[in-house]
């Protein structure tokens, strides 16, 4: 498993994905200039742009790595040679996932450091007039939880990839899951609000609630507002989110292993 993880990591670096990220990361250098367009919140805007860019790069990575992994391995017949080794299919899946997760963490670490430097530079030039200091712990937490969110998305993409024979289902399925998972909380709150009691039928209400429980709740991992406006996050909520992350990842990986284990290899 560790061998597969190492090989996966090496493969990503060999494909020059990291260099690609570094080129996109050059956009970070433009953030202080763009943030200057703000009238009253230069520091806040630089945090918004930095976290959004980080989030966007991680999204691209999670979709491109997770959604194109398994079916491409099968297509290239890489899987056959690996599985001929004394290695179970589930070890292969978990090893692949761990390799991707480590790469995501490394990317976040590098991009996060650049983002922090950019934020520091912008905020030192134009401190917030309303006197809200930047709480670096919140910024780091936002980056950490964003990384967790996209690792979870990789697991989702791998689940799609385990049953697919082309890139359509994993790529579009993951993107759809990403959008749907970002709004499930709002939909759930709306259908369960007193305002929607008369306008929404019980069937839709139950269906929405079921979808809410099935799809991952990615909104819980979004701490951007806390980081941008220095609003203290709820520590218990953060702890629950971490537990939710591990529980959901376990379900996804287990499902992926089961499906991949039953997949016929020709």
């Amino acid at each position, binding site marked *: 498993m560790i061998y597969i993880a190492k090989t996966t990591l090496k493969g990503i670096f060999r494909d020059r994905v990291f260099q690609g990220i570094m080129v996109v990361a050059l956009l970070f250098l433009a953030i202080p200039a763009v943030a200057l*367009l703000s009238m009253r919140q230069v520091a*806040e805007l630089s945090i918004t742009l930095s976290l959004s860019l980080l989030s966007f790069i991680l999204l691209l990575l999670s979709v491109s790595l997770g959604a194109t992994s398994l079916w491409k391995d099968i297509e290239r017949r890489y899987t056959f040679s690996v599985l001929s080794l004394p290695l179970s299919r589930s070890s292969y899946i978990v090893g692949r996932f761990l390799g991707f997760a480590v790469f995501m963490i490394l990317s976040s670490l590098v991009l996060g450091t650049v983002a922090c430097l950019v934020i520091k530079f912008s905020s030192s030039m134009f401190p917030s007039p309303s006197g809200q200091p930047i709480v670096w712990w919140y910024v780091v937490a936002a980056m950490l939880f964003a990384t967790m969110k996209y690792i979870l998305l990789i697991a989702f993409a791998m689940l799609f990839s385990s049953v697919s024979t082309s890139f359509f289902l994993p790529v579009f399925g993951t993107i759809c899951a990403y*959008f749907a998972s970002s709004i499930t909380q709002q939909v759930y709150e709306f259908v369960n609000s007193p305002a929607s009691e008369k306008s929404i039928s019980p069937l839709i209400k139950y269906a929405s609630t079921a979808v809410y429980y099935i799809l991952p709740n990615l*909104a819980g991992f979004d701490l951007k*507002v806390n980081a*941008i406006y220095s609003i203290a996050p709820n520590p218990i909520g953060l702890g629950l989110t971490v537990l939710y992350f591990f529980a959901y990842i376990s379900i996804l990986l287990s499902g992926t292993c089961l499906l991949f284990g039953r997949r016929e290899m020709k």
Partner: protein
Amino acid sequence: MTRILSRPSFLVIACIMYMILITPFTSYMRNKPIEEKLGYLPSVKVLIPLSADQKELTAASLVMKVLMYFGGIVGKTQDGKVISEPPDLKGMSRLLHGAVQLDPYNMDAYYFAQGFLTWDAKQFKVANALLDYGMKYRTWDWYLPFFAGFNSAYFMKDYAKAAEYYKRAGDLSGSDLHKSLAGRYMQESGQTDLAIAYLTAMEKGEKNQALKKNYQIRLAAFHEVKRIETARDRFVAEHGGSPVSVEQLVQLGFLAPAPADPYGGRFYLEPSGKVATTSKFAFATKNK
């Protein structure tokens, strides 16, 4: 076709064509008429799911869009170009309202809305409703109640509300100015007792001697107002009608000694019976 595309000469020709086109194209874009609109914006209900986890970025880009639009119009005005139609203030307001629904903490949206909704669009109530919405989220920020206080006092003449906002701004900022304004508007709204109580508490808690003195002077003025109000009410109770002036109250023995405005002004009664002073509770300044 593919053969032509793979020839270096084709690339050179394409580059030359681009170079020929780029200057007139840039000129066309720069001289586009002022009627550039803010463009179609989907409803916020649609924007929220579309923004996924980038709501703050979407909100910031909406604010930027409004800023660029307004900045473009102002820039063209300064260039001496004729503006064929006024700025789309409604559209600007719609976008900024959308921005704060996506990111209720976005200060740029409130700041800019405060600027054009009041002076340009004369939508004072809309501006204050937006600021009230912002105050629910930006609980640490004294700017929002400060703006709302100014709108209430200056534009809407709602001094009681202004005092409320300024008090909140004063509590958040600790600024003497906001606290004084709060006291001043409390008096103007007929809440002299409230103003006296508020300023007494502030005066007691103030360590800075200069500021303490400032509070004491304002407090002394409000005590004088209170004396006049008490005398006025006694006069009304005894005579059944309102007194004509403060001097009448002094002459008839309702008010002794005669009230003195510490700011150097002269107290008088407004037609409504409200006590006012020519100093407006501020020391006179000389224009150089």
